[in-house]
């Protein structure tokens, strides 16, 4: 269980408060209008946005003061997930070998993961030689290889076309669940939530609303979301 206990995250002049729980093994969509603070919430969980007050717990353990690398979190950003001067192999291998010296064993694991995300035979390419969808797959491969229980997705597929976006969402959720991960994904599209999410955490008016089942949220949203939906 990921628990945000009366948490307040601060980003510049903006504050976001959250007092919610995310269930282990489930897919939760973070939904809300543009600028509501969806990315701030994910940044706060990952340790990139300062926590002004409250606590963050993962399965009871307090992770509030841990550095980003020490949290049980892997994160996929909207852009710039890959390092342009590294090959796909090097980019993905960073998950297991951050010092950029992957062993043969790690290289084999990377190849296997690339195969699973549909990038077989592309490990020697640079990101610039990949399409947008392929870059997303490489990012997903790294996140899956990084052995962390909580996966955060900050609209990493927003630049893709509708069909490819749906395919990538299905692939991410399928692989994440197969690996037993808990997935929290930001989206501004209710259809994405309806497609893959078990629950929805609405973000509006400077706070995170209590989680609701996806259908319940979409059919009878809190008043703060009616005009948005």
């Amino acid at each position, binding site marked *: 269980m990921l628990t945000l206990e009366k948490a307040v995250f601060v980003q510049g002049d903006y504050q976001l408060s959250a007092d919610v729980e995310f269930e282990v093994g489930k897919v939760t969509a973070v939904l809300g209008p543009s600028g509501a603070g969806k990315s701030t919430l994910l940044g706060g969980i990952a340790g990139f946005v300062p926590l002004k007050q409250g606590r963050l717990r993962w399965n009871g353990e307090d992770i509030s003061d841990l550095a*980003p*690398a020490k949290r049980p*979190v892997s994160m996929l950003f909207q*852009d710039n997930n890959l390092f342009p001067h*590294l090959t796909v192999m090097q980019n993905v291998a960073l*998950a297991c070998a951050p010092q950029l010296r992957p062993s043969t064993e790690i290289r084999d694991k990377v190849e296997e993961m690339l195969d699973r995300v549909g990038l077989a035979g592309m490990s020697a390419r640079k990101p610039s030689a990949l399409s947008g969808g392929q870059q997303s797959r490489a990012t997903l491969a790294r996140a899956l290889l990084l052995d962390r229980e909580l996966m955060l997705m900050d609209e990493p597929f927003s630049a893709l076309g509708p069909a490819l976006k749906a395919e990538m969402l299905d692939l991410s959720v399928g692989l994440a669940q197969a690996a037993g991960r808990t997935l929290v994904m930001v989206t501004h599209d209710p259809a994405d939530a309806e497609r893959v999410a078990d629950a929805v955490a609405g973000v509006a008016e400077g706070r995170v609303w209590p989680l609701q089942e996806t259908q319940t949220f979409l059919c009878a949203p809190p008043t703060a979301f009616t005009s948005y939906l």
Partner: protein
Amino acid sequence: MAQRLVSITAALVVAGLVIGPVTAVLWRGGGFAALSAADLAALRFTVWQAFWSATLSVCLAIPVARALSRRTFWGRSALISVMGAPFILPVIVAILGLLAVFGGNGVVNAVLGPLGIPKLDIYGAQGVILAHVFFNLPLAVRLILQGWLQIPSERFRVAASLDAPVFWLLEWPMLRRIAPSAFAVIFVICLGSFAVALTLGGGPRATTVELAIYQAFKFDFDLSKAASLAVVQLCLGLSAGTVALLLSRGDMLGAGLDRVVQRWDGNRLVDALWISAASLFLLAPLCAILVAGLPGLFDLPSSIWPAALRSLLIALGAVLLTMILALPLATKAGEAASLLGISVSGLVLGTGLFLIVQPFVRPSSVALPITMLVNVLMALPFVLRILRPSVQSAKEDFGRLGESLGLEGWALWRIAYFPRLRRPMGFAAGLTGALAMGDLGVITLFSRPGEGTLPLMMYDLMGRYQMEAAYGAALLLVALSVGLFWAFDKGGRVNADA
């Protein structure tokens, strides 16, 4: 078509203003003279000091820029602005400031003396390099800082969440891209060093090619030797300038330098030490000028005011003419043509222009317009580096829209382009004005007594050891140069985003 004609005319004017004077010097000198051992030593020293000045500036700028990129502190924005000051500071003023800190009777030696440490000697090669690092460290910091701030913040987050080494993953690739271009730009600037070499260098071991040209004119009036050295300078400057142009990326405006990248690495104390050391090195000479200059203001001779007015007129004329030439030259070919100006010795340009006008007017009566013209040619490459990216993007963004609305020629510039260019034009005009205001180059050769500019007057006061008055003149010169820069830069920013 008309636009292209204007561009070609502007390029021809620049080429004529460079090639004409060089030819005149060659013609009057009766051809080239063979280079002596001393000339070759000057050539070696020029390259050597430019190499070390650029290397030290860039190497020291890296930790300072990194510290600035990842730390927020009170006055950070002001410090970054002040870091631009040495670049617009008149060379002769900066040298006076450096003498006050590092000179024989300076602050540093006053501290070292009682400790039994031998005195620092600022005269010679080490002084030339020290002065060049003082001028160019801020430029290097700004260029490299821009590189740091161009790294997307997500990549720092990815590196932090993977516990990956930020230096090898993000910083080294950026530095490999930015540092060579910063090195090349500073190397080119240091190649043409004159005022620094004139005041702190000299002698067989610290003479630059530009200083050797000055000596050939002033002491030997050996035009053929000056012409030969000018060609050497031209080849050196053109090749290094071309490399710098090929390596350079984007403008040097430093937009967005106020942003701080959130980082999870680095040591606060080490960063604080680098920022403090750089601030002390850059600000101490400026403070010394301020402290010593205030009482000196009351000792200024009355002839200082006409000299200040002459400098002001040269600066304003240079701004106007530079802008008229720069706008049609804001293309890749135009920028390449402008390199001609900075590659040729300013002294040779000035002398050539004097030789050309000599049959028609008394040369000393046109000393000021010629000084202005040489300053225009010297400023053009910097101005085009600043303006070209903005002109290009304005043309890309609004060129077709303008055409579709039937706008062309002056109307297109007035309605579509100028509003977009106000900010870089203001900055470029400020830079030109400040550089021309503080120029101590060709005027040293041809000015008649009592008709010099403010920097020349200050140099004379230093030569006569009237140091208090020299400090006062320095303060006045700084106030005028910075004021001119501020006025144009501020003017460009007013309603620039409207």
